[in-house]
């Protein structure tokens, strides 16, 4: 208890005295502080999620719905039967649901920025990255839920991932990392557009071509040549291939590497953009 009081006294002058000695003030937040502040924002986001369980509806229902729907609709047509289609499809659904979940980052951010509390955050001595990165850390929970539910639904429908438990866990980690990386792009969109609906609309327009013009649901060979060109460079294709390799064979292949490189590129481009755009507002 005594240490607490010391901390408090150091941080907060007693009522009646205010310090205006500016020479001791740090000019920028330290690394440890930035991390703590990011976790503070993450805790806030988690608290808000718990209070509004509707926020989980997309990651809780969509994986189940899509896995069942796509399995029964396309299974016979594409792979002859559902059992053969599942190893192809489940990683595709996995990538898609995590993308949808990460899209929500931009929408939430936009909503949050419109409520006025963001102006307070911007006047606090916190690291500029913390208000953006915090909610994204909390979103990891959402990706993990989405990924686990997709696998569970697949398994319930007869999917038996050959990669074993380790392979599946590695696959889940890969999509969670992907979702987190892409959320920087959606966060950027969130800081640029005028409204939450705008963020939603633009994100959808990016999301659909990215998921469907990939190898997520169909074999690449079945596509016309000009489209194959795009599908093979689409980073989502690499993520899906990486997840397939991990879950179905347990092998860490070059595809996994490419997927991670893609994620790193997305972060390198969009994290600075999002940060700058957020600061400028």
């Amino acid at each position, binding site marked *: *208890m005594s240490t*607490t009081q010391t*901390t*408090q006294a150091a*941080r*907060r*002058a007693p*009522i*009646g*005295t*205010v*310090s*205006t000695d*500016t020479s001791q*003030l*740090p*000019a*920028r*937040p330290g690394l440890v*502080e930035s991390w*703590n*502040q990011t976790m*503070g*924002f993450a*805790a*806030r986001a988690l*608290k*808000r999620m718990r*209070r*509004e369980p509707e926020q989980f509806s997309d990651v809780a229902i969509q994986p189940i719905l899509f896995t069942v729907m796509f399995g029964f609709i396309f299974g016979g047509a594409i792979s002859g039967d559902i059992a053969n289609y599942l190893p192809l499809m489940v990683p595709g659904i996995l990538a898609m649901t995590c993308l949808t979940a990460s899209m929500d980052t931009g929408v939430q951010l936009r909503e949050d920025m419109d*409520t*006025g*509390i*963001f*102006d*307070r*955050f*911007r*006047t*606090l*001595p*916190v690291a500029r990255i*913390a208000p953006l990165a915090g909610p994204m850390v909390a979103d990891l929970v959402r990706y993990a839920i989405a990924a686990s539910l997709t696998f569970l639904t697949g398994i319930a429908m007869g999917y038996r991932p050959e990669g074993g438990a380790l392979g599946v866990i590695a696959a889940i980690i890969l999509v969670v990392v992907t979702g987190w990386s892409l959320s920087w792009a959606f966060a950027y969109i969130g800081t640029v557009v005028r409204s939450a609906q705008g963020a939603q609309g633009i994100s959808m327009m990016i999301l659909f071509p990215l998921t469907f013009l990939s190898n997520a649901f169909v074999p690449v060979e079945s596509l016309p040549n000009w489209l194959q060109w795009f599908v093979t460079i689409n980073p989502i294709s690499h993520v899906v291939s990486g997840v397939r390799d991990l879950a179905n064979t347990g092998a860490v292949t070059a595809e996994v590497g490419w997927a991670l490189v893609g994620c790193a590129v997305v972060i390198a481009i969009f994290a600075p953009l999002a940060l700058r755009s957020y600061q*400028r507002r």
Partner: protein
Amino acid sequence: MQNIRTDPSVQTNAAASATSAVRIRGLVKTFGDYTAVNHIDLDIRRGEIFGVLGPNGAGKTTMINMLATLLAIDDGHAEIFGVDVAREPHKIRQLIGVTGQYASVDEKLTGRENLQLIARLQGLSRTAARSVAVELLEEFGLGAAADKPLSTFSGGMRRRLDLAASLITRPPLIFLDEPTTGLDPRTRNQMWETIRNLVAGGVTVLLTTQYLEEADQLADRIAVIDRGQIVAQGTPGELKASIGGSSLQLILGDAGDEDRARAVISELFAGDVVHVPDPGAITVSLQVASDAATVLLALRDHSIDVSSIKVQEPSLDDVFLTITGETATEPSPTDASREEISA
């Protein structure tokens, strides 16, 4: 700019910045071809409440937002306790507390959670954050509602919580941007009391308001701002003196007594101005408010019935009329939307 009083601290020397809490020189903010803040100079002393008075769209919020590091400074220079606002925003953020026009609290958290969040973000330990939250909730009369959802909070409670959130680290400078706009009179009085207590603790307050009464009640010194420029500066007394005092408006019980009443009042004030807009109605300009009693007593002595009385304070409109020669009209829609953009 009309300088009502020569301000000794308006000097460009080092001594001035040692005593100033805020020092602004030639501050400019433009949005497109619209100049929201147009070369403002200001010195706010340590420990005073400084009121910035002006109508909607005058540039008050824009100025505060620049000082609070929310908006980039286009031109000029601003210092808070000697720290350059543009160059060291992170230091500035450790020196200020901002309570905006719209309560900036998290609607989905409780009052206690809001305060704990802000405390944790500013580096307080979990236990310290908890005790600060308790202390502030009590201090601001929110103890009973601490764990209720914010949706059950009244406008006044929200503002108080917002103010409490600005005070967690006891910053030496507080910006209050229209702290009572939209509050009912009782809540407004409570808010005023809270603000007075702040300054008793040594805090410097920069307050913006549209209400002359509020500036009068709270501020040690006032700057009147219009279209991004300071048009007058001084103590509330000096400002009011410059626009004349209040007036006493009488309606006589019997309109026939009017001439007699006018004679009585003229005698009292040795030919002072007596307006007669309507039959039976008399408006008396008062040098001092207590003259109202003198007038009423004299009328009673002469058995002249008065059916209604009203003492009219000088309004912001009067200040503007006197200082700028224009009325403080509602801003045009474009001005209002600009103010919103900057908010």
